[in-house]
């Protein structure tokens, strides 16, 4: 009950903030919620299952291009296009899971990185459709659901909140059911989990598919809400970002990905106004956090004060 209350409380707070925040911070929070959804997806694989992916941008990109290409070239409406984005990400993550899960540890990281690079180069190669690195704009007039204009800042905020809510509550629920417990068991001791009779491979497989699909939902939502589709979202930095956000916020905590994304966004936003060497400062902050708060912000809070935090 406490857990449900905490999550609903956070979502209620975000809903209220949407009404009272100044325009600039409202816009920022819309982006942060979409990107945090990406981090929530990443956390399913990394935080709960212990699978470190260096190629998650391909899933974000699958959702983004699935939706974007369907709307741009297929004339598909926003809702079915979002469905195509989800299916694209789910199918890609299933294929990657089948191939990459044949490896473990460092090899798994490298295989995911290579798949992601292949996805990035594919986005460039099919430039006739994707406009490659330049990308393309989804026109304001097609970014609608019925009469609802998704480019309106308020509508966009609540659409982002809806997306984030679904992802957050889904992962919260996951931590409460057997499937989630087995994922944690896989993370902690794969051999023992296998000995207890669980299929480690199938749990890993579904973790990758769920993680990839949530990440794809974030990619599709980014394109739909902000009107841009481009290959830079499939590049290596966009595979590293969710890792940083999750590490910062607390891997294996449900709220950590949101906290990490929020912290990093405002850290960069604030520091870039003070110095051009802001990435250096961000790097130092990350190193300090890694040294002194190894479990991340929410992880440390769980360790020190709130042990029931999922």
């Amino acid at each position, binding site marked *: 009950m406490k857990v449900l209350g905490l999550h609903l409380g956070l979502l209620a707070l975000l809903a209220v903030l949407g009404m009272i925040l100044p325009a600039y911070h409202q*816009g920022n929070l819309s982006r942060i919620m979409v990107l945090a959804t990406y981090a929530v997806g990443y956390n399913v694989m990394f935080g709960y299952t212990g699978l470190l992916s260096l190629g998650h941008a391909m899933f974000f990109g699958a959702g983004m291009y699935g939706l974007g290409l369907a709307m741009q070239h297929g004339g598909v409406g926003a809702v079915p296009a979002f469905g195509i984005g989800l299916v694209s990400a789910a199918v890609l993550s299933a294929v990657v899971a089948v191939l990459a899960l044949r490896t473990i540890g460092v090899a798994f990281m490298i295989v995911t990185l290579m798949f992601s690079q292949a996805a990035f180069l594919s986005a460039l190669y099919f430039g006739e459709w994707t406009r490659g690195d*330049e990308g393309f704009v989804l026109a304001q007039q097609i970014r609608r659901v019925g009469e609802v204009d998704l480019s309106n800042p308020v509508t966009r905020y609540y659409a982002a909140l809806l997306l984030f809510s679904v992802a957050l509550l889904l992962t919260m629920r996951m931590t409460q059911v057997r499937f989630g417990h087995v994922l944690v068991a896989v993370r902690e001791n794969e051999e023992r989990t296998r000995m207890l009779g669980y299929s480690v491979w199938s749990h890993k497989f579904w973790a990758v598919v769920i993680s990839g699909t949530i990440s794809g939902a974030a990619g599709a939502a980014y394109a739909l809400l902000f009107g841009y589709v481009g290959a*830079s979202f499939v590049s290596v930095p966009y595979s590293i970002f969710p890792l940083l956000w999750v590490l910062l916020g607390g891997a294996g905590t449900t709220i950590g990905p949101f906290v990490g994304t929020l912290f990093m966004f405002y850290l960069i936003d604030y520091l*870039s106004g*003070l110095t051009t060497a802001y990435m250096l400062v961000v790097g130092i902050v990350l190193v300090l956090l890694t040294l002194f708060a190894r479990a991340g912000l929410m992880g440390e809070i769980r360790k020190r004060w709130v042990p029931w935090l999922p």
Partner: protein
Amino acid sequence: MSKLIQPNRRTVLKGAAAGGLLAATPLAGRFAQAQSSAPIRIGFQQHITGVGAAYGRWYGRTTEAAVKAINDAGGINGRPLEIIAEDDGTDARRGAEVVEKFVNQHDCDVAFGTLFSHVVIGSAPAAGELKMPYFVVSEGHHVASGMLNRYTLQPGITDVKSQVQAMAPFISENLGKKVTMIFPDFAFGHDHRDYFTSAIETAGGEVLEHIAIPPTETSFTRYFPAIPRDTEVIYHVMVGPAVLTFVKELGEFFGPSAPPMFGFIDSLEAVDLNSPGLEFLEGSYFWEGNPRYAQADQSPYDANFRAAVGVDENGASVSDPSDVSTYAHMFGCWETLYIIKDAMEASGYQGPGDRAALVEAVEAMTDMPHSNEHPQGPKIFNGRTHQAFGVQYITQVQDGRLNLVHETSIEDTFYPDEVDYTTQSL
């Protein structure tokens, strides 16, 4: 020669400081006549970090120089200009966030200054939705293609389609009709592939082979055997750090018997032409948006621009000869700021409520004569497509410097309109 402008993080003249300084100068009388003496705030979306940092540095210096020149001459409608620079990290997502920041946080009047196409395209939706005039200095064809929106304009620099198209007649008549193109296999290279291939056919030539180099490639020799033996001209537009290797390996492949070569200076912006490995470029031809080296018949406008920004006759910083400028592009910042000035004065711009009128005032512009305000050359602005058209320069590497051999007409750069933004609502 003046001292190099060294831009600060945020501005030349901060609002309060500007007011104080101006009150103590002879300009005070001119500024005082305005209805409001508050600075006009220009949001400068700058590539301070990321792959575009070299361009960002020089775009910054040019912008600071133009702002100083405009403010010294009385500002805009009697109000001084203030630059609010934000780093977009040369990233499309951050670019859009920065545009929102200009509108909702910094209360800027306009946004300006973006070069890299993916940042422009990523940011333009935010500008359109927030109805923020967004003046890009990108040379991409994205504006004139109709992909963007009524609030995005490119009046201070020509676009790649017109540039490429204007090169074809010169190449066909002077260098050869059978061309092999070598280009990076992403959007920038694809633009060249598509526009040049059709333009050279119109000019009576043909492209024998398209050689697309994957963007992750670091060695190029294995691609060169694909160059057909009867190639008369090599057209190359490799960009990025690999360009030095590319040129060196091309030189080793051909030795002294290379066909004439034509390239776009984008490959070598901010790169010293006399860098080791580039010797093979001697005798080859380049498109330049604005000749890097001061020419024998240099216009007084170029001399004024060069001195104001702090660029020597070789196109490098006056305070550091190894700090080579991005001379073929950065004039666009200078010219764009003067266009913003002209449009604000023409529309009687007072504040953000007049943004729509400002866009209409730019759309109404046509001729931009060669002048101190337009030092690159004369231009014609097309208000329907939001794109400027202007003369292009072809230079040849002679004794390690780029000397002008041809100047196109503006008409060479025209192509049929692909959009009419004036039909979109404001």
